[in-house]
């Protein structure tokens, strides 16, 4: 029943937390199959090397070893390379360069961590011992890790097929219109920005257990995936050449993904293939150092951006040139992230009439780069908002005022941007006004003075961001290069006793779908929330699914469930008409009860369900037994969450340490199903966004290509004491094109927050002459920026 505690819009406690908090979660590494053996992957210690010879002999003879395989063994069995799911078309009309991505290296290794061989043994430690005995004869080659350097003449070439290390050059927007805008401009703001590389750091490392049943000729892969159906499709159709119906992929409880578990990884295919070769189930769980080396990383852009304005601060045009690091191989969605998910977002919340974006995708000797929470949209927001804030400073304008002057007005929706998107709805003034109220912007100057008295520099920074979520309308995605559809599937099954199982192609790895989806279904069917269970993550139980990323689960997966619910309710109406002996068009449905209009004749959903499975007197020609409906939902547009983030920092000028003292986020997520879960998602997103702004960075040694930040001794994760108590609010305008009116909230915090933090620091340090700062604003970097600014003043 839509009770006070669990109805739509209520902060129902998360169903899944009972098992997580009592240690009853079932993760991939918890799965042990009879006869199981263990895999250890030998990985390249070199960023770039030719493999002359691999001697696996001593490893094969090591205690407990079952098998050792290399790329040659895969090739001999006709195993294909890891496919890419998105094709970008070059500015010349040519397809992007798509070099082979062997599941185990063939001939060459191209980044530190590239898989060279796999050892399978009775225990993990035996596999690891044996892996140390594999002798690989490498010719070490020069490496290149920075996207800007990789494009220069004479640099090491990562793939012969991609001369100059260029995967593609992609353009969006009207270059002539932009040139014209810049010619007319009264002021131009120019920035060079680095959006640094991040490691995803899910708390659960990647893991897989693969098995093969000879009797049924059936493969089963348990894996840490955000989208098991996609993994099954890619692996069966493109890598292993297996019939899809003979492969079951299960993603059980998954401990966080942040994008890194969307992709089909080589380890999954190698284990699945090898499980048949050795005739036993095989388990592999990444060690944390392996995660740092081999999980797909995020971001890694180098950008030059320019904004043209008239003398009132009205934006006339924007020009963006980005070099995007794709790493050594194309991960599943890699090409789309710095293009479709980036260039299209450069309008932000503004009416900028002319925008042109040019992106060069670059191969380097680094781990593949792909979607990481926000995926393209944080990079776009960082460019737009840093430009806007810098422009305001340069023109002496108030940060709120320059934004309001350029906001797309509330009555201008649907709004067509010059970069391909049509925003359906929004009210940007409203979120900014509310954020400024919650952040007590009026009291800031007093706080700044008080901080000054304590020797601290205090600053305030703004970010008014937009994102395109609810990925994605298949027709738009297809036109933009997607090799798959981006719909979602949902099934609602009423059991004879009126209990409900919901099957969703979305995957929950921290998002709380078991709660949110149950709230929707319980409310719509009028059954108790406790009577609804949500099943996800198993290709044998769920018809199909495209998984969870891009803040799509509720907007797309939830909408599919809504469609299935409509079908259930429609069928229930037929059953009710039969049972109540009334015409179908006379049956009204409300909150779990069918009623003959204008009478007191009614029947509950529970009775309908029972009758559906006990069809003793059904008119079988017109009415099919059972109450179980499946639906696919393909959105007609993206959703456009947007919001205003305001950050206040204090900087200790003696040490360069930045403290985020206040952070306010007011977001427009459309309708909210569970405000507690939404707030949690925002908190997590803010932690990651602030983490990027202040702390996190994956560093490869520029000369050797070695990963220097290979452990938590050097990779800086945000921790609770790095963060303030957030002030979070919403100002919602319902999405106009999905049945729930929802937009998605999973990425907003990560997308909106980084520029607010950086601009707050620049604002704080502007009295000292600091004008620019790159992320992450670590103490040494901030201190150095102060020294440099003071030095150049003195000079």
């Amino acid at each position: 029943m839509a009770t006070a505690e669990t109805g739509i819009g209520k902060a129902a406690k998360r169903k899944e937390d009972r098992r997580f908090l009592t240690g009853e979660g079932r993760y991939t590494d918890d799965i042990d199959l009879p006869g199981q053996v263990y895999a250890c992957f030998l990985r390249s210690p070199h960023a770039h090397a030719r493999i002359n010879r691999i001697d696996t002999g001593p490893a094969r003879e090591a205690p407990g070893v079952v098998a050792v395989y290399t790329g040659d063994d895969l090739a001999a069995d006709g195993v294909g390379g890891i496919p890419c799911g998105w094709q970008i078309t070059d500015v010349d009309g040519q397809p992007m360069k798509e070099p082979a991505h062997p599941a185990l290296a063939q001939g060459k290794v191209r980044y530190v961590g590239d898989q060279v061989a796999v050892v399978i043994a009775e225990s993990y430690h035996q596999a690891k011992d044996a892996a140390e005995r594999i002798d690989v004869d490498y010719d070490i080659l020069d490496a290149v890790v920075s996207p800007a350097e990789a494009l220069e003449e004479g640099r090491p070439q990562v793939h012969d097929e991609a001369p100059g290390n260029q995967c593609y050059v992609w353009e969006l927007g009207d270059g002539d219109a932009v040139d014209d805008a810049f010619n007319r401009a009264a002021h131009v703001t120019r920035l060079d920005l680095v959006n640094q590389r991040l490691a995803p750091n899910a708390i659960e490392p990647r893991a897989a257990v693969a098995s093969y049943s000879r009797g049924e000729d059936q493969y089963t892969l348990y894996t840490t995936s955000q989208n098991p159906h996609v993994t099954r499709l890619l692996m069966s159709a493109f890598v292993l050449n297996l019939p899809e119906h003979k492969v079951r992929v299960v993603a059980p409880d998954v401990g966080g993904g942040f994008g890194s578990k969307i992709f089909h990884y080589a380890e999954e295919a190698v284990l699945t293939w090898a499980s048949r070769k050795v005739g036993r189930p095989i388990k592999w769980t990444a060690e944390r150092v392996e995660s740092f080396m081999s999980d797909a990383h995020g971001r890694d852009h180098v950008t030059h951006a320019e904004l043209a304005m008239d003398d009132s601060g009205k934006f006339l045009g924007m020009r963006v040139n980005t070099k995007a690091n794709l790493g050594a191989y194309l991960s599943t969605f890699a090409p789309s992230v710095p293009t479709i998910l980036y260039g299209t977002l450069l309008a932000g919340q503004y009416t900028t009439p002319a925008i042109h974006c040019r992106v060069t995708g670059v191969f380097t000797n680094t781990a593949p780069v792909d979607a990481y929470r926000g995926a393209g949209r944080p990079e776009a927001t960082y460019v737009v908002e840093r430009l806007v804030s810098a422009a305001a400073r340069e023109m002496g304008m108030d940060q709120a005022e320059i934004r309001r002057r350029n906001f797309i007005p509330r009555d201008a929706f649907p709004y067509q941007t010059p970069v391909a998107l049509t925003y359906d709805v929004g009210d940007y003034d409203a979120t900014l006004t509310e954020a400024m109220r919650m952040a007590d912007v009026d009291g800031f100057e007093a706080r700044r003075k008080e901080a000054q008295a304590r020797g601290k520099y205090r600053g305030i920074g703004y970010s008014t961001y937009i994102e395109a979520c609810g990925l994605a309308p298949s027709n738009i995605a297809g036109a933009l290069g997607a090799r798959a559809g981006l719909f979602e599937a949902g099934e609602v099954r009423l059991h004879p006793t009126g209990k409900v199982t919901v099957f969703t192609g979305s995957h929950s790895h921290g998002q709380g779908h078991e709660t949110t989806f149950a709230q929707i279904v319980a409310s719509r069917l009028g059954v108790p929330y406790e009577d609804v269970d949500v099943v996800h993550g198993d290709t044998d139980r769920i018809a199909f699914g495209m998984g969870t990323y891009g803040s799509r689960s509720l907007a797309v997966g939830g909408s599919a469930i809504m469609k299935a619910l409509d079908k259930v309710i429609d069928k229930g109406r037929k059953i009710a008409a039969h049972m109540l002996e009334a015409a179908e068009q006379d049956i009204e449905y409300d909150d779990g009860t069918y009623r003959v209009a204008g009478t007191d004749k009614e029947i509950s959903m529970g009775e309908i369900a029972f009758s559906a499975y006990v069809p003793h007197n059904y008119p079988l020609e017109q009415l099919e037994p059972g109450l179980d409906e499946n639906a696919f939902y393909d959105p007609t547009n993206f959703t456009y969450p947007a919001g205003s983030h305001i950050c206040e920092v204090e900087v200790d000028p003696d040490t360069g340490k930045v403290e985020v003292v206040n952070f306010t986020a007011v977001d427009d997520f459309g309708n909210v199903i569970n405000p507690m879960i939404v707030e949690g998602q925002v908190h997590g997103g803010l932690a990651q966004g602030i983490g990027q702004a202040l702390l996190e960075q994956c560093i490869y040694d520029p000369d050797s290509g070695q990963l220097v930040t290979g452990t938590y001794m050097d990779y800086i994760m945000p921790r609770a004491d790095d963060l303030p108590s957030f002030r979070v609010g919403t100002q919602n305008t319902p999405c106009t094109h999905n049945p729930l009116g929802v937009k998605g909230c999973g990425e907003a915090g990560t997308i909106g927050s980084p520029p607010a933090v950086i601009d707050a620091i620049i604002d704080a340090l502007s009295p000292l002459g600091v004008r620019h700062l790159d992320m992450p604003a670590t103490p040494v970097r901030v201190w150095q920026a102060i020294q440099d600014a003071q030095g150049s003043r003195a000079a």
Partner: protein
Amino acid sequence: MELKNEQRLPVSRQKAWEALNDPDVLAACIPGCESLERVDDHNYDATVNTKVGPVKARFTGRVTLENLQPPESYTLSFEGNSGQAGFARGSADVYLDEEPDGGCRVRYDVSATVGGKLAQLGSRLVKGAAEKNASEFFGNFTRHLGGEPEGAAEEAAAGSGQAAQAEGGGDSPRTGYWPWVAGGAVVVLVIIILLL
């Protein structure tokens, strides 16, 4: 990693060059050296047990010599592996300068890479460890020459070490001899500098 350093030795350049090139001397002075063997005129194999705090790793490696200018300078390149710990590779330019007081000065200019687990886990320690090992080596070596580390003023007594015995009595070494002994020297330097 870039490392530049120099060390004063209390013997003439010629003697230092020769001493640096006696594999027995070197093996005795290199912290953790297990073996040092000539493969041919320009290649040497070395095995060294290194220790940095709790980390212990056994490296095997090969040194290749180039640009030999006895007794003034040479360049060497090195690659060494330690299965579980990773690898080290790089090159060093080594110079021996005469000092006005009759002693000499060894300068080394190293460009090196540490890879694999050592790079991932130990980046904060690599340079300090390399410097420490270099200093330990030169301490041992200077003592071996009969001096005191850290700028002891006395010249080493003639004939105090095997180096002097190996000198061969003249400025012109036997054919094939110099590269061989020079190899010993560079092995030492690279090992101590590159191999933690």
